[in-house]
């Protein structure tokens, strides 16, 4: 019996881990170009609320995700302009984006004529695979029990890993994040690269927010992300800037998120604040473990030029 509780909570860890993964993967792409965007939470809310609105207007989840991702990318564009073109402090600009996105979601979500708080999505997603496969032991609920967005996120992980570490374009973006001056001398446009990847990050966050509201909760509430954006941000560091590690890490964080419910069912009680803090504690522990081994620290540490504005004149 405890087995099935465990299995169920693992399956739902994958579900709740998916928006974390989408947003975290996006932020990872952004950071590989040397831009740090602290505004994930804001972009999730801002993009997500528009994506959610779309889902109340039209039954297509794909359309909702596209709209939510697009709006998230627009929010990221603000950050790109501030951080890349104006070279302002990226911490300040990212934090401003959190406030902007949160305020935007609150405004759109509760304004009278939209009243998203009472709206419901027109449809909800079904698992992709048939009953037979879902009832397979173990792999059934864990691997075959999900809707297509989950599988899309797996595909994106594979695509990101391939893109970053196997292709020329990936080499170029990592060069921009590591050593923009060198990238510049070999003819790679640092500015364009950073804009594009910052917006990819925003799209990931917007899609994550949309999935969270339109599918997982199927409702909009003020501040519905409840810190998931921050967890996604921590995820990038926890995963050592590696997509496949992000997949695992997202589900670990998702499981921690669910741990409260699971423990309740099992009869234990731990304050929810403690559980909410666990992803961050885990990230710090991971950092300590990694930094204890210099070789690993080199391999899994932040891009060298992360959050450092680039200007040709100042070398």
């Amino acid at each position, binding site marked *: 019996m405890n087995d099935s509780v465990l299995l169920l909570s693992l399956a739902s860890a994958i579900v709740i881990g998916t928006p974390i993964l989408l947003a975290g993967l996006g932020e990872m792409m952004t950071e590989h170009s040397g831009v740090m965007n602290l505004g994930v939470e804001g972009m999730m809310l801002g993009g997500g609320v528009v994506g959610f609105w779309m889902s109340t207007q039209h039954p297509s989840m794909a359309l909702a995700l596209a709209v939510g991702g697009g709006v998230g990318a627009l929010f990221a564009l603000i950050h790109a302009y501030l951080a890349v073109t104006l070279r302002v402090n990226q911490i300040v600009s990212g934090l401003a984006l959190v406030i902007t996105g949160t305020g935007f979601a609150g405004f759109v979500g509760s304004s009278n004529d939209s009243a998203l708080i009472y709206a419901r999505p027109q449809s909800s997603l079904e698992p992709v695979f048939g009953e037979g496969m879902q009832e397979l032991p173990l792999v059934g609920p864990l691997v075959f029990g999900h809707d297509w967005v989950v599988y899309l996120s797996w595909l994106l992980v594979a695509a990101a890993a391939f893109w970053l570490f*196997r*292709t*020329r*374009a990936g*080499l*170029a973006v*990592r*060069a921009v994040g*590591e*050593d923009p*001056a*060198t*990238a510049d*001398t*070999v*003819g*790679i446009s640092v500015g364009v690269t950073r804009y594009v990847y910052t917006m990819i990050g925003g799209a990931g966050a917007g899609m994550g927010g949309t999935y969270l509201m339109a599918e997982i909760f199927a409702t909009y509430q003020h501040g519905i992300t409840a810190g998931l954006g921050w967890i996604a941000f921590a995820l990038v560091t926890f995963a050592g800037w590696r997509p496949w590690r992000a997949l695992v890490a997202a589900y670990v964080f998702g499981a921690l998120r669910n741990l409260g419910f699971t423990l309740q069912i099992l009869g234990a009680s731990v304050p929810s604040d403690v559980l909410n803090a666990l992803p961050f504690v885990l990230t710090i522990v991971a950092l300590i473990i990694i930094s204890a081994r210099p070789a690993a620290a*080199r391999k899994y540490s932040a891009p*060298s030029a992360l959050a450092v504005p680039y200007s040709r004149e100042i070398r």
Partner: protein
Amino acid sequence: MNGDPTPAASTAEPETSEAGGEPQEAARLNAITKSFFGVPANDRVDFDLRWGEIHALLGENGAGKSTLCSVLAGLYHPDSGEIHLDGERVDLASPQQALEHGVGMVYQHFRLVDRFTVAENLALGHPETGFVASRRSLERQVAELGRRYGLEVSPKAAIWQLSVGEQQRVEILKLLYRGVRILILDEPTAVLTPQEAQSLFTTMRAMAADGQAIIFVSHKLDEVLEVSDRVTVLRDGERVGSMETAEADPAALARMMVGRDLSTRARSRTEAGSAALSVRGLTADGDRGIEALREIDLEVRESQIVGVAGVAGNGQRELAEAIVGLRRSKRGQIFLGDVDITRTSTLQRIKLGLGFVPEDRMRTGMAGGLPLTANLALKAYRQPPLSKGPLVSKRAVEERARTLEKQFDIRGVRWAMPTSLLSGGNIQRAILARELSARPKVLVAAAPTRGLDVAAIEAIRQILLDERDAGTAILMISEDLEEIMDLSDVIVVLYEGRIMGRLDPDDASPEVLGMLMAGRTADAGPDAAADTAPDTGADTAPDTGADTA
């Protein structure tokens, strides 16, 4: 020197010999002029390069070697003059374009992404890498090129794991991989150990034998004589001459390199007092962990200026830093008067009367973002009247700044303005003001007039001379020979972290200094390495010197 200056030996690449009327000519630069802010770095310089040769560019720092190379590499666009490659006139707007013409340069600061592997660095920006960067074929090509030219380096290794010499190999590989046939090496041996330099020379010879053309920039005579086929000497942005290396006379080359008339003004001499700063057997590591100072023995007396000459990167910075306590000394001792300060903190050394004018005046001399008032108070704030218990008296700080401003003639100051906006001469005056107002017994001044205009140079030198006359012991490190010969009471020449020679300025001709700076014991001049100036106390601590010899 296996390079045959006649191109008959170079059988490689027939297309090059068919391209132009002059088949053996790889590159020709005609009357290249390039100025920076009105100061010419190259003044109508002619230069030609043949296939299959190693052509050395010899000259002091600031002679215009790097500028000339950067013009050929497409980094700088010349103000006037023509570039011909392979007999064809070209206009090089960017390093990319130069690369397309087969010209590539290895800069002194490597352009490598530290965390990338060797193979990844080679693939970066390479037009022929496919969308999917195939690691295996890339790694195979790297290994193949490496074997051919003796540039062995593991393609899978990350750059940060490699030694400087290996990183340099990667830079060369990167260019070869892009099809470069004219290779420019800007002071390539400056960062290498002697063994690494030898291996680089082997590579250069292999490439030349393969028909490629190499420009080898250096200020080290021995290396130029050892590896090059021809040598061109630049001085003050002008070409002094070119010759076959085999026919070159080392002493003549040295004279060509530094041989301007040095206007030695009548030096005022003062009687040197007792030893104020003594350095014995000092050995210290450089930033890369290689010994940058080896068994240095040095003494500076009261009312004496000891000038340390040498080409940059031969241990000058490390010497200054070790003395003022910014660099740990591995062996040896440093005395301020009678006090052993080898292991004391920088603050303690300051309190004992040590002043420091650092080489990099913006980075280590001043906090550029702070106003001048604050910068001038940086040392004195610890004592009254500037400090009042835990507080700093703003009024005293400003009063002091105003006094120093007048006394040292610092101009253009507006009070809240960041110091970095001042001119170089004024910043240098301000640093001197701060250091000298602490009344030091010993002043270490590194490159005190570098980059300043003539008036400022004169003023700074006068300040140093006055200070010496007032009894201060000054260790002056400078690359400017004129300055060394003008101000010093004793001259010491540093080469590869050792003292190559000690001489009295009256015996120091540019030739002798040039030879010593280029790492040759002066067989052409007076016996420079001996203790030639007993009257000024040049021979330091002969007892400790004996056991190092």
